[in-house]
């Protein structure tokens, strides 16, 4: 099965929190992406009947949200905030240094499949710039050296 029974059961349990099952869709998409690395058309096809949707409707929701992807990406998502407060603190030079260190530019995945790099539209850490999000974790008050250490330690 494209989506295991265990994951499907978790999705259906979450859906019960909402007056309509579709309220649980974002949670389901997060769950599928965490488990399988992306929400592919095959996953969308498997999810659609649970939410009384078509597969293309599911993918239309996926494409709207920055954190969701229908394409497999690196094992770790690294996002550097480059909005105004962070830019004032040098975040754009910081991002270029990270790009040089990883040998990739924003939007790309490292050749070993370890890291997908991107930039973000404000992560709510404006007083602690430069900062980056690695998967579900924030790293704040960074400099190039401390950021390198975090990135090099990722599996």
């Amino acid at each position, binding site marked *: 099965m494209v989506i295991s029974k265990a994951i499907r059961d978790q999705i259906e349990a979450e859906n019960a*929190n*909402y*007056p*309509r099952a*579709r*309220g*649980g*869709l*974002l*949670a389901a*998409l*997060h769950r599928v992406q965490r488990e399988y690395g992306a929400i592919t058309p095959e996953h969308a096809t498997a999810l659609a009947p649970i*939410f009384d949707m078509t597969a293309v409707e599911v993918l*239309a*929701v996926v494409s*709207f*949200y*920055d*954190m*969701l992807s229908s394409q497999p990406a690196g094992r770790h998502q690294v996002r550097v905030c*480059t*909005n*105004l*407060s962070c*830019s*004032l*603190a*040098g975040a*754009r*030079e910081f991002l270029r240094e990270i790009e040089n260190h990883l040998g990739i530019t924003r939007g790309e995945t490292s050749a070993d499949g370890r890291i997908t790099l991107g930039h*973000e*539209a*404000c*992560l*709510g*850490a*404006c*007083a*602690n*710039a430069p900062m980056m*999000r690695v998967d*579900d*974790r*924030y790293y704040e008050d960074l400099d190039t050296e401390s950021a390198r250490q975090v990135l090099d330690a990722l599996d």
Partner: protein
Amino acid sequence: MQKAPHVTDYLTRHCADDEYGCLRGFEAQGGYRAAHTALREMTPQKILDEVRQAGLQGRGGAGFCAGLKWSFMPAPEQQPSYLVCNADESEPGSFKDRLLLERAPHQLLEGILLAARAIGAQKSFIYIRGEYAEAARVMQRAVDEAHAKGYLGDDVMGSGFSHDVVVVRGAGSYICGEETALLESLEGKRGHPRVKPPFPAQRGAFDRPSTVNNVETLCHVPHIIGRGAAWFRSTGTEKSPGTTLFGVSGHVVRPGLFELPLGTPLDEIIFEHAGGVADGRKVKGVIPGGLSMPILPAGELDVAMANEFLQEKGSALGTGGIIVMDDRTCMVRTACVISEFYRAESCGQCGPCREGTAWINDIVTRVERGTGTAEDLELLVDICDGMEGQTICAFADAAAWPVRALLKHFYADFERHVREGVCSFSGSFQL
């Protein structure tokens, strides 16, 4: 986890204490006392009246009177109806709700209980932006603790009132902070703002009457109910009572959060509380309330931070996110960063916004690179005119205002780029 504020008051006094994040620690500081009393002894109408008399303004950006918003809800017999907590904090320069979620989750739950009681909602949804994974974990743990203690679920605190809270994670979209886009997202859809009316109180989440309140707004409620409207009105200004969490970022010595009365002068916040501009520089401009709010030039910082005063200066309080720029800053680069953001985040539903945000970004980018013309600067104003008030939601206005204000106060920076064919602000931040 978010660092505790530099200056605290009633909302954040205990935020540095890790124990405050759990139910026992929260109750040790008097938490849930207001709910215990109010759920048993006050009618819903009495709770609503108290908050309305307190004059609590929404802290999510629009500043609408919270009690008045609650009063738009239909009679409690119309079930189900919902309370939705907007924890989609995404306004660049704002990081206050993250603190309240991560470090005082039970304060928010107590506010939710009281608000839900006032409007007659049996269920609440806390919609937390997807990137705030830590906040979502902390809130879910607090919800579970409250359930186990009988503070959520059936017959809350023996009051006969039943209430459930669902923690919902967004998935990365600035526009979902707009309340009707949030409702769409909550329903598992693309976050496209809805045409109003109908307003959420008429038809909100899942087609039912709903009230959407910001995190900080709800966090004030237990304090108002516990100590009364008159106490709340004893701080802040007459029209804008209470404290708020100002977030200061950019070129200051001590960036961070400061809980201060509404009406505190902007220059006092920057120079006294945040330690002034770093490296002994001078201020060039300050965005007073999150990225969407019009910038103020250095000469206009003697303004009280409340909407009635900021509006006289052509700006507004927004989310209270203060972004300080020193005198090396290139304001055309500032316009590039701002317009890049709105271009990326426009939901694309309305033509003037979808096209206008991209066009503005193209123009300011070429002006910054030195290939812009004098006509380009006039064109920017025309594009702003064509966006403001022409779309379903306020996003297009929020994208146009900062550009208009940058042109108004820093036209010389734009002209200099056009004249010199290059950005000659050598000490400015880099793009």
